[in-house]
C-alpha cells in the first residue's frame, strides 16, 4: 500500500469512528433528556428512569464511550501504520 492510500484509509476509518462516537453522544446528551418526562414512568434500580439518566446514566455511558473511542482510534492508527513509535 502506498502512503497516500494508507492516509485515505486511515482518515476514512477515523471519520467513521468520529461519526459513530458523536451519534452516541447525541443520543445520551440530548435525545434521552428530551424524553425525560416520558422515561420517568419507568423505574430503574429504584429511580425514575428520566431522572436517573440525567443524574447518573448518561455519565456512566460517556465514560464507557470515551474509553472505547480511545481504544478504537488506536486500533485504526496501528492497522493503517500511523501509530506513533513508543
Amino acid at each position, binding site marked *: 500500500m502506498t502512503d497516500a492510500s494508507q492516509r485515505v484509509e486511515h482518515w476514512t476509518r477515523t471519520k467513521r469512528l468520529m461519526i459513530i462516537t458523536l451519534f452516541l453522544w447525541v443520543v445520551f446528551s440530548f435525545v434521552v433528556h428530551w424524553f425525560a418526562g416520558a422515561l420517568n414512568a419507568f423505574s430503574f*434500580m429504584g429511580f425514575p428512569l428520566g431522572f436517573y439518566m440525567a443524574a447518573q446514566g448518561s*455519565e456512566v455511558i460517556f465514560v464507557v*464511550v470515551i474509553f472505547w473511542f480511545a481504544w478504537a482510534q488506536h486500533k485504526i492508527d496501528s492497522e493503517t501504520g500511523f501509530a506513533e513509535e513508543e
Partner: protein
Amino acid sequence: MKGLKGNFIENLPKIYGMYTGGFLVFILIMAVFEQMGMDADTIGILFVAFTVLIYAAIGWLSRTMQVDTYYVAGRQVPTVFNGMATAADWMSGASFVAMAGGIYFGGHGYLAFVVGWTGGYILVAALMAPYLRKFGCYTVPDFIGTRYGGNLARFCAVLVLVVASFTYVTAQINATGTIASRALQIPFEVGVWFGLLGILLCSMLGGMRAVTWTQVAQYIVLIIAYLVPVFWMSNKQGFGVVPQLVYGEAVMKITELEAMHGLGTLDAVAGAKAGLKALSVPFVAAADGWKFVTLVLCMMAGTASLPHILMRYFTTPSVRSARQSVAWSLFFIFLLYFTAPALATFTKLQLLNPELATGIIGKAITEVNALEWVQKWSSVGFLQVIDGNGDGILQLNEFFMRGDIVVLATPEIAGLPYVISGLVAAGGMAAAMSTADGLLLAIANALSHDLYYKIIDPAAETRKRLLVARALLLVIGAAGAFVASLKLTSILGAVAWAFDFACSGLFFPIVLGIWWKRANRAGAIAGMVFGFLAGTWYLYMVRFAGMDPWVGIDHLRFGMIGMPVSLIAMIVVSLMTEEPDAETQAMVDEIRVPAGKTILGSSH
C-alpha cells in the same frame, strides 16, 4: 525534584501514593486532636493552611527557566496523572461547593449542568485534543495563529480566550477568598488576596510544570474531601455502603415528602436576605426538554473550547496518551459528578423527613432555632428562618438557605465530627485554587507567548519571555482578585458565561481547522469575531437591557446564539475567499495522523 528529573516521572505513583497516605494520616491526627478538645476553628485553620503550604512547596520545587517546561511541562506528563490534573483544573469551586446545592434547589433541570460538564469530554477526545497535541502548540491561539496564519487570527483567539477565562477566574478567586476568609477567620477582602497568593505560589515559578504537579495533589485532596463525608453519612444513616448506587428509594421518598409538605401550593414568603432561597421546584419532575438540551449543548461545546482544559492535553508524551488522558480526565471528574446528586438527595431527605432526627420541616420554630448548625450558619447569613404565617411551625417556604450549604453544612447536619468540616474546607480550597491556577496560566501564556512573543517581539530571548510570562501572571492575578473583591456576580452565573463565551468564539474555528481543509484565515476570523460579538450582544440585551429572551434562550445559554452565527460566518466567508495554500493543506493532513513529528518544534 529538579535533581531526580528522569526518575521523578517513574517515581510518580510512589510519590503521590505517599502524599495520599500522608494526607490521610493528617486527617486522623486532626480527628485525634478533636477528641482531645481542639476547637473547630483551629481544625479548619490547620486544614487549609497545611494543604496550601504543601501546594506552595510543590510549586517551589517545580520552578524552571526552560520554555517548553514552562509552557507544556516538558511534554512528559503520564496519561493517568494528566487525567487527575485535568480533573482538578476542571472542577472549580462552583463544582465542589455549589453543584450539589444547585441540584438540591433545581432538581432535574439543574442536572443539565452535570450532563453538560461531563459529555463535553467526548467532543474533546473525538474532535480536538489528539490533533492539537500532534500540532505541538503551546496555547490555543498558537494553533489558530499557525493553522490560519497571520497575526489578526491569533489576536482574535487571544481576545476570546482572555474574556472567557477572565470571567471564569474571578469566580474562582472569589471562591478561594470565601473559603479562606471562613476557615482562617479573616475578612473576605483579605481572604481574596490570601487565596491569590496561594494560587501564584503554585504557578509563577514553574509554569505548566508546577501547575500540573500541584493540580494532581489538589485533585487527591478534593476527591477525598468530597467522597468521605458522603460515604460516611450514607453508612451512618443506613442508606447503603455505596450511596451512589442505592439512592433511588430516597429520590422517590422525596417526591412523597414534597407533596406532604405542600410543595407548589405554598405562597412565597418575603423578607429573605439576598442569595438565600426556599425550595420551590420539585426534585424529580422532568424539566422543559428544550431548556435542558440547550444548556447541555452550551456547556459541552464550551468544555471543548476552554483553553485551560485543551492546553492540559499539550503536556502528554504522545498523541495516543493525549486521547487516553481525556478518558481518564472524564473518569476522575465522573467520580465527583455522580456523587453530587446523591449528596443533594441525602441532604434533602434529612431536612424534609420528619421521621429522621435531622428533619426540621414541620417542627416548631423555637426547636429549629435552638439547633447548633442552624445558629452557626444563620449568624454568617447563609441561612434564615422566617415564620411567614406566624404559626410557630416551620413550613417548606419558610426555610431559606444558600445552595453552598449543602456541601459545607451537611456533615454538621448529619452530626459528623468537625474534622470532616475542616476536610471539606480544604477540598473546596483545592478545587477553587486548581481551577484558578489553570485559568491564570492560560491567560498569561496566551498573552506572553502569542501576543508578546509572536506578535510584538519575536526576537525576545528565552529569559525575557519567561520573565514577561511571570509578570503577566502577577498582573492578571491581581486584576482578577481586584474584580473578585468587588463581588459583582454570583459564582455560577459567571461560570456558565465563560462556557458560552468560549463556545461562541472558539469552538468552530478550532474544530473546522482540523476537520475542514477548506477553512481559511478570513473564515476563521469571521467565525471568531461574529460568533463572539453575537453572543456578547445577546448576553447584554437579555441580561442588562431588558430584552425578552428568544424561545427560552436566557443569559446562561447565549452560546446558542453565538455558535450558529460563528458557524455560518465561518463557512460563508471561507467559501467566498480563496482556499488555503497547498502547504497549509498538507499541514492539516499531517495533524490528522498521530505518527511523525509535531508541526511546531518542541521549543518555538
